[in-house]
């Protein structure tokens, strides 16, 4: 699908130009020239200034499906600098939550955009001071105000979760921050119960089709797992000693019977941390050690098994499912394998300077873990628990895998990812990929190199089966950025006809920073 000239003209409305001009002026002040000349796709990483954004009646290219009604919330690092100081790592940025609201009538969709920074304790204090006051995950800012607990450093920048009508901006080291779902105004840290105040709460809770929420948190050598009801009550939680240090565990997966973690061989050099290095610069990667597969029984959190596989770093999982009798279950896990931590961190720092990292790939992986089976794991590592691990790999460059919300924790067939197609040295993704795990069929669509495509979530089409039978009968909805137009957009694809290209793109009259994760909630 090509952009219509009349659409392009609409985008050139005077107001939009004025706003983009202001954004460019801001960018210049941050060394924007480097971003623009060497890697235009990195320009949004310069960040916003902390202002709210709001735009109504967005320009729609193509046709938004009539059944797509609701709000797509998205979170990501939005503010990257204060005064002369700039965060050095993408993960540091203060959380900007966007709400894309799809309304209007049949054939006449109306889309509104709103974005507000999460008013964390840190954000408010630093906005008032006009400079950074607290250490960030990857930037060693000396503490200039009291650090009370993990929430003192909470930037609420990673994902969102709506639970029983209450919207949350998620980080992973501390509390979920509750927001007003309509205005995005910050209500404050969510306290599930007094003993869970300020606890780490990951940005990747898993919501099963019945509304049950599973989540976890890590801190130092300890982990916590939570089971939360659809009404937002913590039904169970358990804190336990992790089998290995767990300074960096971003996501997990749930199957019918298990919670599954891949714990990479990373530990923290406490001396370096105390010596003033950032949390991230104090992490040590042990390439010769194993990544631990931690499998926890959903019915009894104290039943935990640990398996081993060669060192690998994983940020994101697609899904998991299990089969077989108790004690001899086979677990199926799909995920995206990243690169070794030092490499990932070097890249994430480069992009914050506006420099293209050397081309690299994160790739799809499919694990089969036969628990109780005799024999060593892959590469002859002796497993801590009896079991056999088999890995299948694909070589496409992908990240941010998603599955249909109807199959979370159930056997699934389809996985969707942003992917890079013929991008050469350009950073990021420009396309989407659908994998049919049963047939092995791959379907893709790619924009040109001027487009950066972000995570796209599955939105079930109204009227399709609610259970597993409906899997894949959905739209893919996510965001992107056009480097030439310097505008951000939302794109909508038919997940059953991905290669046909987008059904619609909805254009902002400005750009927004790249985000990490989002969720769509039907009206």
């Amino acid at each position, binding site marked *: 699908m090509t952009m219509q000239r009349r659409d392009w003209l609409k985008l050139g409305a005077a107001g939009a130009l004025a706003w983009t001009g202001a954004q460019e002026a801001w960018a210049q002040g941050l060394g924007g020239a480097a971003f623009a000349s060497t890697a235009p796709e990195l320009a949004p990483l310069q960040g916003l200034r902390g202002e709210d954004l709001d735009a109504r009646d967005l320009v729609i290219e193509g046709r938004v499906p009539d059944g797509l009604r609701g709000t797509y919330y998205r979170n990501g690092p939005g503010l990257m600098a204060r005064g002369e100081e700039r965060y050095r790592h993408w993960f540091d940025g203060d959380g900007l939550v966007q709400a894309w609201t799809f309304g209007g009538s049949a054939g006449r969709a109306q889309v509104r955009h709103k974005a507000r920074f999460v008013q964390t304790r840190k954000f408010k*204090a630093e906005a008032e001071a006009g400079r950074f006051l607290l*250490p960030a*995950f990857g930037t060693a800012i*000396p*503490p*200039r*105000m*009291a*650090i*009370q*607990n*993990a929430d*003192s*450093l909470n930037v609420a920048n990673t994902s969102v979760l709506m639970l029983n009508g209450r919207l949350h901006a998620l980080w992973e*080291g*501390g509390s979920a921050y509750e927001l007003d779902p309509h205005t995005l105004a910050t209500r404050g840290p969510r306290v599930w119960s*007094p*003993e*869970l*105040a*300020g*606890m*780490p709460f990951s940005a990747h809770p898993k919501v099963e089709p019945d509304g049950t929420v599973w989540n976890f*948190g890590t*801190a*130092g*050598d*300890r982990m*916590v797992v939570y089971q939360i009801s659809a009404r937002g009550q913590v039904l169970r*939680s358990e*804190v336990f000693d992790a089998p290995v*240090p767990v*300074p960096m565990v971003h996501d997990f997966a749930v199957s019918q019977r298990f919670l599954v973690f891949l714990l990479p061989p990373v530990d*923290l050099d*406490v001396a370096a*941390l*105390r010596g*003033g290095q950032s*949390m991230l610069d104090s992490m040590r990667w042990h390439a010769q050690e194993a990544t631990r597969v931690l499998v926890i029984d959903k019915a009894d959190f104290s039943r935990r098994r640990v398996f081993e596989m060669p060192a690998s770093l994983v940020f994101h999982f697609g899904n998991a499912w299990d089969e077989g009798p108790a004690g001899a279950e086979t677990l199926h896990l799909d995920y995206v394998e990243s690169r070794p931590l030092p490499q990932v961190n070097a890249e994430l720092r480069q992009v914050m300077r506006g420099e293209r990292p050397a081309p690299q790939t994160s790739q799809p992986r499919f694990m089969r873990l036969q628990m109780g089976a005799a024999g060593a794991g892959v590469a002859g590592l002796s497993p801590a628990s009896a079991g056999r691990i088999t890995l299948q790999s694909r070589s496409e460059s992908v990240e941010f895998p998603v599955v249909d919300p109807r199959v979370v924790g159930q056997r699934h067939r389809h996985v969707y990812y942003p992917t890079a197609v013929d991008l050469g040295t350009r950073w990021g993704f420009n396309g989407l990929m659908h994998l049919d795990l049963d047939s092995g069929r791959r379907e893709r669509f790619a924009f040109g190199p001027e487009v950066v495509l972000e995570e796209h979530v599955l939105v079930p089409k109204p009227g399709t089966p609610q259970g597993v039978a409906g899997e894949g009968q959905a739209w893919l909805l996510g965001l992107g950025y056009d480097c030439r137009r310097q505008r951000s957009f939302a794109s909508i694809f038919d997940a059953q006809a991905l290669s046909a290209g987008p059904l619609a793109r909805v254009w902002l009259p400005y750009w927004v920073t790249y985000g990490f994760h989002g969720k769509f909630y039907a009206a």
Partner: protein
Amino acid sequence: MKKTAITTQSRTARRISSRFVCGLALCAATTCGVPALAADAPTAPPAVSVSSPAEMELELSGIASGEGQILVSVFATPEEWLKKPVAVVRALASAQKDGRLLIKLGALPAGRLALNVAHDINGNGRLDMNAMRMPTEPFAFSNNATGMFGPPKFDAALFDVQAGARLSVSLK
């Protein structure tokens, strides 16, 4: 002689101190800031002397609410820092105005000391912690000293005992 707020370590203080040790290891390895502190209620209520020559004032700011009590623990040596206070003073948080409160620190031993302040919001006599032993109630140190992934060093929080002088600490 009338003793002023000089207490031996209470049972709860010992418990907190032992938590402090594990908390330190935990917090050193996480984004969490400062672990449990020794600010804890003495078993006997302190009697505040008004005649001590080494009386000082502590001006607290940033008190988030009028609930509960403020616990001030004073330490005399690096070895005893956050473990064994030489004085503990309590004040009702309801006396705060606009987040500010003036607390008298009576009969301080001469020399150089360091203190920590905790806002015991629920009034249970200790600094509450969550299930991962991270503090969930506000606290601060003299000089507004901050630690880097742990409490500040004793030296960073040192102040000179000077009769009639005022210290300022922010709980924000």
